[in-house]
């Protein structure tokens, strides 16, 4: 018994990363970031607005939240749809109460199915992110290039008429990418993505075409991950996020601006027994006053010193 020699050869053993997508860099060795008003903590609230088809094909892997029961899985289909009908409106009210900014990452198919909802979200004046076509369209190497390109174009086409500015931000379904997704995003006019959860601040991300910025949208701190994957209670969810906010705030005071990237799913946190805990978290964040800068993701990227080509993000 033995393995092929390739299992003991290390071709990418070199200084830095084992790929070309970004430079190796420790957050604390970078020039500290200063947010507007010298706030130690920036707050990015993103809300995912998603459609889970009843008949998923799940090429490559099944993105979290997809159907799990034999067809027709009405329980999960409708439970996800609850978010678009009810949960999202609870979140909108909670945001509105404290004047917090949020971005909305929308599946293209949601805009097509529920134009009322898409327009309602656009009218909030928030930044919209392309969130792929639907939650069964996870980008991965199991999907061919043409299909991936088509999903990206279709998604942008469904969202672009909603807003005056072109859509520049991307969050892949399940944050998944194939090895060619970044090039395809660049080709479609996307200038930043949120998929790689390896940092607390934005950084430059290389593609064969032009560079993108990656603004990590924390997975460990999102409602779905804590509540659905880890099976923690809604009270625990709020406690953990409050601990995170307080920790980042303290770090931000000592070491330069930090970011709390809060990702929400209306079908998770929008349930009646959970929404009160999101409100408790919002009250805590609001109570921090000027120490917290609530902003759109593009503003955060710009404030961190990145100029995104073609996005009109200032100089």
């Amino acid at each position, binding site marked *: 018994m033995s393995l092929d020699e390739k299992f003991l050869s290390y071709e990418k053993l070199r200084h830095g990363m084992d790929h070309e997508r970004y430079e190796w860099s420790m957050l604390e060795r970078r020039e500290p970031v200063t947010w507007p008003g010298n706030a130690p903590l920036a707050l990015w609230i993103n809300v995912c607005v998603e459609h889970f088809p009843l008949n998923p094909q799940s090429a490559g892997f099944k993105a979290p939240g997809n159907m799990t029961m034999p067809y027709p899985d009405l329980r999960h289909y409708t439970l996800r749809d609850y978010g678009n009908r009810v949960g999202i409106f609870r979140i909108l009210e909670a945001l509105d109460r404290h004047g917090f900014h949020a971005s909305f990452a929308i599946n293209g198919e949601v805009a097509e199915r529920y134009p009322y909802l898409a327009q309602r979200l656009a009218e909030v004046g928030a930044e919209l992110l392309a969130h792929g076509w639907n939650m069964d369209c996870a980008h991965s190497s199991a999907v061919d290039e043409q299909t991936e390109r088509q999903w990206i174009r279709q998604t942008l086409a469904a969202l672009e008429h909603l807003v005056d500015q072109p859509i520049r931000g991307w969050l892949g379904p399940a944050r998944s990418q194939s090895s060619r997704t970044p090039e395809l995003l660049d080709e479609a006019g996307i200038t930043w993505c949120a998929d790689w959860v390896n940092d607390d601040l934005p950084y430059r991300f290389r593609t064969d075409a032009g560079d993108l910025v990656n603004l990590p949208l924390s997975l460990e701190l999102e409602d779905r991950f804590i509540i659905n994957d*880890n099976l923690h209670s809604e009270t625990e969810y709020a406690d953990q996020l409050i601990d995170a906010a307080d920790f980042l705030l303290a770090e931000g005071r000592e070491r330069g601006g930090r970011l709390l990237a809060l990702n929400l799913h209306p079908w998770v946190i929008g349930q009646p027994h959970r929404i009160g805990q999101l409100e408790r978290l919002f009250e805590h964040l609001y109570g921090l006053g000027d120490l917290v800068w609530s902003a759109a993701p593009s503003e955060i990227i710009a404030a961190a010193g990145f100029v995104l080509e073609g996005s009109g993000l200032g100089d």
Partner: protein
Amino acid sequence: MKSDPGLYGYLPWDRRPQIRWPNGARIAVWVAPNIEFYELDPPVNPQRKPWPRPAPDVTAYATRDYGNRVGHMRMMRVLDQFGIRGSVSLSTAMLTHHPEIIALVLERNWELFSHGIYNTRYTYGLSEDQERAMIIDAMQRIREYSGQHCDGYLAPALSHSEHTIDLFAEAGGTYTCDLFHDDQPTPVTTRSGKRFVSVPYSLELNDTIVYVVNKIEPRRYGEMIGRAFDRLYAEGERSGTVMCIPLHAYQVGHPHRLAAFQRALDHILSHDGVWLATGREIARHYLEHYYDQAMATMREIEESTA
């Protein structure tokens, strides 16, 4: 395949030599940060896939990378605050990929021990010669970079063969972290007959097992560490115990987890009889003072019940 790994004899908790740690301490506490590199697209071992999703699994990879980019400095700062020297379970590829981190831990006089080359290269399926070569390669990398002799081993991603511990002992190692059968060091039987021990590591208090496998809340993890310590501290009055806290910067280094961890360390360090040690120091103290006695007790028990 064997039904028993054959690595240790039976040594009941009520027949232990009375262990005393240096300065009369009741408990040896050691913290083992796993400083790891996971590859984006490694060759796929026939027995274990590196990542759940098709390659490149961006989320799984980025989750680990967070530890090196962000979490490490936070974790190290908390340990600095309490004067704790880490015993690093090292993916030795880190010496090449991210030497900046290794320089920081060597400045602090931390111990380096081997955790293989990459945490995405598993032992499964390697021939004995291949595994020996890998084990020696990793030990040499540590020696060349740091000047330290590699005394300890935690197999990469806890992947083992029947010979892993034999091979490490033959290559000059002193202790293994791969066995979870005890709260004290114990002699380990290897085919070379060398004096070799197990130093208790921990799965139950390992942050990755806690957060990823058992899905424990951060504040509860802090409580678990406190409870384990209280019990081992109390029992340590009879015979010194060992408590290990294995860490991963990509788990404990998240902003919602550090405060609870810090409180747990604060609790531990508020006690007098604590020996803050490294894995190597615990192994050596045990080998020097208690190994022979433990071997004799095991033989006695075996003979008296035969």
